[in-house]
C-alpha cells in the first residue's frame, strides 16, 4: 500500500468528515436557511482536501482549486439566499418541505 503523510491522511479524513456533517445537516434540517448553511459546510470539505493535497505535493494547484471552491460558494450563497428571500415573500414559509412543486 502506498504511504501518505499522516497530516494528509488526517486532513482527508477531516475533509470527508466535514462533507458528511454538511450532508447530515442538509438531510436533517427542514429550514431552507439551515440547508444553505449545511451546503456551505459541505463545500468546506473539498476545500480542505484541496489545500491538504496541494500542501502535500507542494503544487499551487491545490490553492487554486480552493479559490474556485470559494468562488463557487460565494455565487451559490448569493443565489440561494435570493431564492430564499423570494420564496419567503411569495409563500412566507421557511420550510422546504412545503415547497413541493415548482408552480409557485
Amino acid at each position, binding site marked *: 500500500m502506498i504511504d501518505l503523510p499522516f497530516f494528509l491522511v488526517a486532513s482527508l479524513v477531516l475533509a470527508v468528515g466535514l462533507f458528511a456533517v454538511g450532508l447530515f445537516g442538509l438531510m436533517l434540517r427542514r429550514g431552507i436557511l439551515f440547508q444553505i*448553511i449545511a451546503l456551505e459546510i459541505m463545500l468546506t470539505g473539498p476545500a480542505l482536501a484541496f489545500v491538504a493535497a496541494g500542501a502535500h505535493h507542494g503544487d499551487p494547484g491545490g490553492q487554486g482549486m480552493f479559490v474556485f471552491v470559494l468562488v463557487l460558494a460565494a455565487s451559490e450563497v448569493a443565489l440561494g439566499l435570493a431564492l430564499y428571500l423570494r420564496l419567503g415573500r411569495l409563500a412566507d414559509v421557511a420550510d422546504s418541505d412545503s415547497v413541493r412543486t415548482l408552480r409557485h
Partner: protein
Amino acid sequence: MSWAGLFAVWAGSLALVAMALAVTRPNVVHALIWVVAGLLSLAAGFFALGAGFAGAVQILIYAGAIIAVFVFVVMTIDSGPEAIARERGWLGTGWKLPLALVVLVLAPAVFGLAATAGPGAPTPVSPVALGATLFGPWAVAVEAASAMLIAALLGARHLARRERAP
C-alpha cells in the same frame, strides 16, 4: 511527524466539531456563529499546511463576506422564539436515518484512509507560485470563474428585487 501537520490536523478537527454543532443548533444565529468559528479554525489549519494565501482568503472572503451576507439575510427574517421552537420541533424528528447514512459515508473513508498513514510534512506553497499558475495556465478557468460570479450577482439582484412593476 511534523508539528505543522499535527497542528493542521488539530485545527481541522476543531472545525469539524464546530461545524457539527452549527448544524444541530435550532437558533440560526447560534448556528452562524458556530460556522464562523469552524471557518476560522479551518483557516488556521491552512496556515499550518503552508497555504498562507488560502488561509487569508478563507478569513477575508469566506468568513468575512459570505457569512456576513448570511447575517444580513438572517436579520431580515424574524428568527423569533417561535421560529426557534419550530426548528427545535423539526430537529427532534428524523435524525436517525441521516446519522446512520453519515456514519456509513465516514466509515470507509476513515478506515480506508487510516491504513495509509506515514511520515511526511506539508510543504508550504507561496502565493507567488499560486498567482503564477492562476494567471498562467489557469487563466481561462479564472475568467470563467469571474463570469460565473457576475452571473450570480445579476441572478441574486434580479431574484431578490421586490416586484414593483406589475
